[in-house]
């Protein structure tokens, strides 16, 4: 089953693999990113950080949407990771059952304003996340498992 849907623009990195992966006892991670899915060398770099005990799957948005039920039915615990808000918003519509989205790292970029130390959003991104929450998805910001989750309503 998927135990974490996370938006993190650092993609596969320490917080995800070690911070969440260790604590949640993760068996697989799905990186939903069209660019990385199309690039062998980017996939190789991502693999560098993942121990052999964790399966790493690369998917396009379309592939991920189609395979979500399969991953939710997997006996292992998994993380679905996207690098941006838009990708997660597209996926959220295909999420079966209990729906939660974790804002793990969306960093400073032109047009974005700071909402938390690790969450910066453009007005459009903020609107999309608010809309997601209005559809019943629980959207919270939390960089590491030991931090307190901050509901989206407090950020936008």
């Amino acid at each position, binding site marked *: 089953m998927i135990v974490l849907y996370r938006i993190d*623009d*650092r*993609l*596969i*990195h*320490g917080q995800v*693999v070690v911070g969440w992966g260790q604590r949640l006892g993760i068996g697989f991670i799905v990186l939903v990113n069209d660019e990385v899915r199309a690039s062998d*060398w*980017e996939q190789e*770099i*991502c693999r*560098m*950080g*993942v121990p052999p005990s964790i399966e790493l799957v690369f998917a396009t948005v379309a592939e991920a949407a189609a395979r979500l039920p399969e991953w939710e039915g997997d006996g292992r615990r998994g993380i679905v990771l996207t690098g941006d808000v838009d990708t997660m918003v597209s996926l959220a519509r295909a999420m079966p059952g209990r729906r939660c989205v974790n804002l793990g*790292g*969306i*960093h*400073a*970029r032109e047009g974005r304003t700071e909402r938390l*130390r*690790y969450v910066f959003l453009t007005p459009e991104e903020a609107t999309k996340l608010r809309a997601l929450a209005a559809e019943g998805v629980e959207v919270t910001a939390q960089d590491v498992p030991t931090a307190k989750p901050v509901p989206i309503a407090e950020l936008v």
Partner: protein
Amino acid sequence: MSEKLSGVIVAHTELAEALLAAVRAIAGDETGLVAVSNRGSDLKALMKRIDEAVGGRPALIFADMPGGSCAHTAAALARGRPELRVVTGVNLAMLLDFVFHRELPLEAAAERMVQTGRVSVGIVAR
């Protein structure tokens, strides 16, 4: 006489600056090293930061943890850039050795750093 190698330490939060401060305290101010933090950056912003620190010169990039955002970004930057090498698992022994071997060819320096770094890890009392 070819140009001496530059070194760029790329690490989480304050680690790179702290390592550089320790190197300076031991070896003096002419280190050939600069520090880059991943603080507050996505992969693209971090790559720009590292690229600016490299400044187009032949350089060894010292990243902290294989698979972390620092190593990930450094490896992506170094792709197709023959004047760059990325070494992970940066430690103080490695950096001090670098300061005194910056005249080495890039590949030899990278291999030497890996050796020095590895040799410095061990149990010294039990």
